[in-house]
Every structure is written in C-alpha cells, then in structure tokens.
C-alpha cells in the first residue's frame, strides 16, 4: 500500500524494550476499587447504587446521561462502601465523584446481556446500543464515548474504518501486547464496528517498530479480503488520528473538522477488542491493559487491570520503586500528564503509568530562544510555536489564537526539540485553558442576557395583565352579562393604550 508523508514529527528514544516482551499479566484483585463517575469526555454518569448495595461484576452502577456520556460497571463483585469525592487521575489532584467498591474476592459475574448471535445480520442501532450499554470509550487516551463515534455512519458518508495501532508514544506497549495476544478478538471487533458504520474497508495502521504485532494481525486478518494491515513509518506523533489518516490516505483533515468529514472513522485497537467482548459475550468494559514502566519501576509490566484499581496498587504489583521517581506520569512521556497523587484510580483511558527518574526527564534550565526555527520545522500541525509562545508570554492570547494555538493538540514535539528547553507546549496548554475559560464566560454572558430579556418580557406582560384587571374592576357593571361585555371592552382599550 502506498503511504503518504506527514509533516514534521520527531524520533525520540522509544524505550519500549522495557515492557514489549512482557506478556500481559492479571493484577490480583485489590480489596477496594474506586470507580469515578466521569472517566470520559462529556457529562458524568448518574449513580444507580447506594451505600451497602451488593453488586456483581459487570453490573451497571452508573448510567450515561445527556448526549455525550458513558455508563460505568462494577469491575468485580462486592459491596458499595460509599459514593464520595476521591482524587482524580489528573495533574491538578482535584477530587471527583467516585463509587467506592469493596471486593468480596469472589469476582462473580452478574447476569449479562445476551450475546448478539449474528452481529452482521443485526442493524447498526442494535450494535451501537450494545456499545453504549457496555460503557465503551476510546481506549487510546482521549476516552470519547465510542457509541457516538459509531453513529457517524448515519450523518456522514463513510468508506473506511481505520484502526489505530500506531502506539507512537515512547515506553507504552499495551496496544502492542493486545495486538500480539488477542489479534482475532480485535479483528472480529473491527468487523463488527465496520458493519455498524457501514464502511466497506478496514485499514489497521501499526508502526513498523512492532513487527510481531503486524505479523499476528496480518495472520488474523488474512481470512478477510476487506481488511488491510499496514506498517506505518516510526515517527512521533503517528498515533494522532489526523496524522494517521494523512499517512494512509494523503488527505489532511481541515481544522475544526472531523476525520469523518473525509469519510474515515478512527478507533483504537483496544476499543475494537472491547466491542468484541460487548457484542459476542455481553461483557461491559471493566478492565484494560496498562503499561507500568520507567526506570524508577523495579519490574516494568503490562498489567490487565480492573478499572478503579489505585495506581499505587499497580506500582506495588511491579515491585515498587527501584529508585526515587522524579515524576510519575499518567499516559506516555510526550502527551501524558504528571500525577498529583498515587491514590488516584486507573480509568478507562489510562494507557500507561510511568515512573521516571531525573535522567529520563528533560528538566534543563530554560535559556533564551536562539530563533533556530526547529519548532516550526517539526510542528506536525504546521503551526509556528516560537511566535505563539512569544505572544502568550506577553499575555497576548488573542494573537496566539489567530496563529492557531487552538489547533495545537499538545503533542509536545516542539518542547522536545527546543535546544533552549523553552516549555513551549506548557505555554500552549496554558493559553488553551485561558481561551476556553473566556469562551465559557462569553457563553455564560450570552445566557444571562437571554434570561434577563425573557424575565423582562414576562414582567411586562404581568404588569399589563394587572393594569387590565384593575381597569376591569373599576368599571361598574349592572348585570353579569353586561359586565362581562364591558370587561372585555375595557381590556381591549387598555391593551390598545399600552400598545400605543
């Protein structure tokens, strides 16, 4: 298959060998699990259980609400201890509403939804409903509810389902391992998704530094003519959906548009596996593979983890810290975020936990920009990081927005390449945060305006009605019928007066 070049990008030291040969192992069930109501983009799920309830594995404990949301299921059987605020796996360390589940050690499955006997005969709604009921979200990291993405076939003309197995972030090997160990499940899930989307073609993009995964996936896909497994060049950020689409089709997704506008829907390989489980066995998404790596970890591993296990549980299972970690990162080293607390739980979008030593982190002091333009050359979005950062430094955020800071997806290539160690991507994250704040404030002011106007209209109407009633009462009436006539007349005249 002919591939197309993508703009810019970098070639960091991949350091995947720490875990790439480590087969997936199950985490011993922790005694307590913490299941946040919000593990996805959109609205938090609505709690269905209360303190003391006994639940079985796979039982729905929080239901999706609103247009964009995902439900949560019990990752094991046990008793609900409480629903409370628990530290989120987030750099701020802020708390979020979380269901605390005490495991009973039996790990008993609840009565699950019946498998869909022949998914290729079922209509798209049956499959999408099942995906929604199973709480499946994109497992590459963004955690967007998958059922909504599978509905795109209704609104747009689609031709290709692109499965993302690029896994371009250094250290991470969870998708690699899933592709090596469960290729048939991924292929089956992908075929079901393609059926729901109505796409004839399936392309699976895997970076060439995973030859074993490419081999196993090709073997599993060989029976199906519509599936093509493609080895894509090793180039960060190949795993970004827009860039993977460009590498495969040569088409660039316009700013503020979706890849679906080009007829392509991208899903992660692990998401396809979750769809397979939901459709074929009725099993909701209650566990995922997490890579625990970094030089500060004693025994790096790929761990099949129930959702809600504390990050500290995973690190303990890996033998704890070999040395003091300088930073513990949630996700990959490029786009991942530092964790404020190890007490935070693993969620559906957690792909890796990295404990990095000081040598693995670039914390060199920032020196002045030498205007080498390396950041401009490597920016995969074609932006000009040096100019945007200069504006942001002077708090001229609108100028930065004009240069396209909102189109930056924080891949971190510019910070990586900068010889002066300027924290470029930090500037952009800050600017995007402030610009989003201002946008929210503007939206709120708009809403306040509509509400205030609506109230004024209501008050005016009420005052008018009062005047009319008053005028009607003042008019003397001989008989009831005459009175009624008079009242009607007076009301009319009063109204006319008011209108005039």
């Amino acid at each position, binding site marked *: 298959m002919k591939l197309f070049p993508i703009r810019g990008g970098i070639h960091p030291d991949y350091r995947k060998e720490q875990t790439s040969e480590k087969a997936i192992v199950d985490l011993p069930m922790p005694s307590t699990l913490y299941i946040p109501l919000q593990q996805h983009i959109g609205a938090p799920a609505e709690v269905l259980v209360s303190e003391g309830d006994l639940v079985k594995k796979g039982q729905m404990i929080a239901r999706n609400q609103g247009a964009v949301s995902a439900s949560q299921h019990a990752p094991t059987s046990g008793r609900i201890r409480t629903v409370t605020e628990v530290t989120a796996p987030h750099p701020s360390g802020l708390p979020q509403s979380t269901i605390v589940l005490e495991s009973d050690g039996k790990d008993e499955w609840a009565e699950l939804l019946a498998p869909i006997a022949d998914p290729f005969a079922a209509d798209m709604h049956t499959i999408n409903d099942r995906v929604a009921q199973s709480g499946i979200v994109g497992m590459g990291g963004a955690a967007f509810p998958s059922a909504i993405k599978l509905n795109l076939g209704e609104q747009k003309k689609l031709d290709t389902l692109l499965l993302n197995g690029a896994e371009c972030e250094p250290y991470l090997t969870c998708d690699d391992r899933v592709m090596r160990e469960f290729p048939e499940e991924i292929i089956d899930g992908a075929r079901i998704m393609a059926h729901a989307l109505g796409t004839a073609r399936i392309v699976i993009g895997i970076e060439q530094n995973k030859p074993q995964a490419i081999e196993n996936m090709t073997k599993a896909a060989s029976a199906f003519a519509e599936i093509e497994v493609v080895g894509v060049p090793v180039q960060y950020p190949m795993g970004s959906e827009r860039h993977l689409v460009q590498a495969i089709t040569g088409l660039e997704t316009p700013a503020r548009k979706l890849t679906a506008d080009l007829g392509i829907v991208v899903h992660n390989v692990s998401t396809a596996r979750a769809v397979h489980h939901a459709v074929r066995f009725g099993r909701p998404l209650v566990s995922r593979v997490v890579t625990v790596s970094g030089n500060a970890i004693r025994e790096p591993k790929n761990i099949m983890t129930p959702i809600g296990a504390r990050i500290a549980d995973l690190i303990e299972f890996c033998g704890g810290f070999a040395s003091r970690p300088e930073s513990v990162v949630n996700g990959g080293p490029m786009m991942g975020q530092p964790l404020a607390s190890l007490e935070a739980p693993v969620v559906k979008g957690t792909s890796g936990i990295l404990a990095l030593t000081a040598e693995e982190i670039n914390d060199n002091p920032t020196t002045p920009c030498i205007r080498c333009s390396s950041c401009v050359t490597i920016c995969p979005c074609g932006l000009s990081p040096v100019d945007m950062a200069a504006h942001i430094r002077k708090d001229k955020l609108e100028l930065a927005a004009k240069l396209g800071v909102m189109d930056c997806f924080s891949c971190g290539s510019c910070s990586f390449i900068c010889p002066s160690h300027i924290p470029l991507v930090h500037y952009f994250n800050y600017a995007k945060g402030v610009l989003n704040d201002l946008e929210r404030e503007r939206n709120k002011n708009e809403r306040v*305006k509509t509400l205030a106007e609506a109230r004024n209209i209501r008050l005016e109407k009420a005052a008018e009605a009062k005047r009319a009633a008053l005028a009607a009462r003042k008019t003397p009436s001989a008989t009831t019928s005459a009175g009624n006539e008079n009242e009607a007349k007076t009301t009319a005249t009063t109204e006319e007066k008011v209108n005039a």
Partner: protein
Amino acid sequence: MWIAIGSLTTMGLVLGGLLGLAARFLAVQENPLEEELKEMLPGSQCGQCGYVGCSQYAAALAKGEASVTLCTPGGKATIEALAKKLGVTADLSEHEEKGPEHAFIVEDLCIGCTRCIRECSTDAIMGANKLMHTIIVDVCHGCGKCVKVCPTDAILMVPVPVTLRNWHWPKPQIEQTHSEPKVGHAH
C-alpha cells in the same frame, strides 16, 4: 409615446437614485458604538456599575464618561472587550479581580420571604413563600443584588469552585537565566 416613456423612466431612475444616495449619505447618525457596547454587557441590569442598567452604562461609556472596569458580573473578559472596542487601556488596578462568584443561600437563615427571587434578573433563585430558597448556580452570574435585599443576611457570595472541568495549567514561570546586560563605562 416612446419619448414620454423614455423621459419618465429616466426621470424616475435619476430621482430614485438621488433619493437612494441621500438616504445613504445624509442619514441621521445614531451612535452605533452605544449599541455595540450594550451588546457586550451582560444585560442583566444589575446596576452594580452605578448606572440604572446596561444601556445607561453603555451610553456613558460611549461618551467617555465612565470607566470600563465597572461591570462586576462581566468579569475580566468584558473589561478587555470594552477596552479593546474603545481603544483604551483598562486600568485593572482599580478593578478588584475576585474571580467569578456565585450567590449561596445559608438555608438555616432563609425565612422564605421571596424578596431575592423578585430581585434576581436571571431567575436563578428557586423557592416559594415561606419555603426555603436556593440558588441555581449554573444560571447565577454573581451580580449580588440578592445579597442587598435579604432581610436576614442569609445570602453570601462565594467563589465559583475550581473543578476538573474548569481547571487549567498555570502560565509557565521560566527562570531568567540570562544575566543582566552589563553597562560598560566609557573612559
């Protein structure tokens, strides 16, 4: 006949054109700035700026009689937008940046008098006579009018909490590693 039709048509076109031009160039100038400024204000008529309502404040701004920093509910975003429109630099030193706030009713103190409900310009207070009231936080824009009318001081203004939804990274503080330029003395 053709001459008559032709001359009348020409006259019609010329006079029509003149009228059109007159309407365009001799139009009474309303101050469009006032209208634009009014659009930028929240429009809740809270009166915290010291004027009766948003239109009056907009009029004063257009005349250059008022400072751009008076709108409390609009916050920093509104101040900056107004300053940009008027081409002035906003003096934020006078503006006390408290961050967004919303009203909060201390339920133990509320006597259910409905005075705050009547005062609220965005219908952000729920309640009825002799029943406890509460604030719909999503709709409250923090004008503080309800605080003034409450007979039992049951309403407080509290900062909008930082949550996972509105948290963002702070501005990076980079160390200034380059040394101060040395001023050479000429001898």
